[in-house]
């Protein structure tokens, strides 16, 4: 039950971050919001496997944490240098 309560709180927080991502106004605000959303997603993924009492699937949160960072890094490289190489 406490997992569900924390999960709902995280989803509400995600909605606020999403509002920032949609409002902008600059692309940096959007990337900041996306990055925070990514962290929230990792936590919510971890919470969800506990809600379902399948903690062995916490791998999903780990994979997400690894891969999401690549996207953030690429976006930052693009906005700073205009290329990925």
């Amino acid at each position, binding site marked *: 039950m406490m997992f569900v309560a924390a999960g*709902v709180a995280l989803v509400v927080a995600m909605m606020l971050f999403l509002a920032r991502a949609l409002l902008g106004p600059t692309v940096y605000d959007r990337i900041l919001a996306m990055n925070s959303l990514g962290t929230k997603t990792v936590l919510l993924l971890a919470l969800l496997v506990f809600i379902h009492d399948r903690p062995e699937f916490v791998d999903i949160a780990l994979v997400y944490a690894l891969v999401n960072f690549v996207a953030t890094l690429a976006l930052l490289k693009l906005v700073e240098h205009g*290329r990925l*190489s």
Partner: protein
Amino acid sequence: MTDRWIVELLLAVVVVTAVGVVRARNLLVASVLLGIYSLVMALIWTAMEAYDVALTEAAVGAGISTLLLIGALIRTGSRIGGSKERDAPRIDKVALAVAVLTGAALAYGTLDMPAIGDPTAPVHVHPKVARHYIDRSMEETHVPNMVTVVLASYRGYDTMFETCVVFTAALGVMVLLRRRRPPAEPAPGEMREQAIFVVMTRMTVPFVLAYGSYVITHGELGPGGGFQGGVILAAGYLIYALVYGLAAAQRALPPRLTDVGAGLGVLIYAGVGVACLLLGGDFLAYDALNQADPAKGQQLGMTLVELGVGLTVACVMVTIFNEVAQP
């Protein structure tokens, strides 16, 4: 279902994000929002307990597809204004009407579908498909993760041709986009000269590579397998390439090697099938690999084809990144 609330809130988030993607005038903004869309989808799959799908969405949708969209923006020369954005959506009424009608028709179509998780749904009671997988997969293969058994063994043909599709994508990218000249060295002051990135790369990349190998080889026990593990392996390369520059990354892992690896993975997969044929079984019927104990043969076959898939996927992701990263 105690987490019903979470799923419904997340679905609302997906809808809002989708509208945001359509309304965004700047393609970079649309890419960022699509990244958010995909991360929420990974959450929904997890909330619905589709862990293998969630893992794939997390591996591919979240990181790699954003990267490919960015690559497409670079290679098409789209103007990526750092701070300038135009937000003045024009709405074509005809297109909007068509989209709304199509959406309504699709929503109407779902009314006839069985409820989510309904155990009496036709797809779950077919005696030769679903029932067979559920009742016999443990006995026939001794592998606890039924999803891996279905993908790698019962429907091995599907997965083999999916691997071929991935390989074909790499071929297409090579033919269309490959440049002869080597990538330029990064200018001074870039990420590789900032201590925070160097330290972070050194501490994370070895771990990412080890974890990717783990996911490829343990697909029969937990969620994951060749596809997800391959993407994670590629993610390790991508972090290195983004921080140290493409030139350094290609010195560490020459494109010639990944070209060979992409083909080799498909060859391993098909080769396992041919080996089954030569040992007297059917193509990709792994029972033939171990006549004394067919379950052991199944496990060996699945491990080998997962290795093939992982190799192809990792090499293809690296190749595509190599080709799109240069402007």
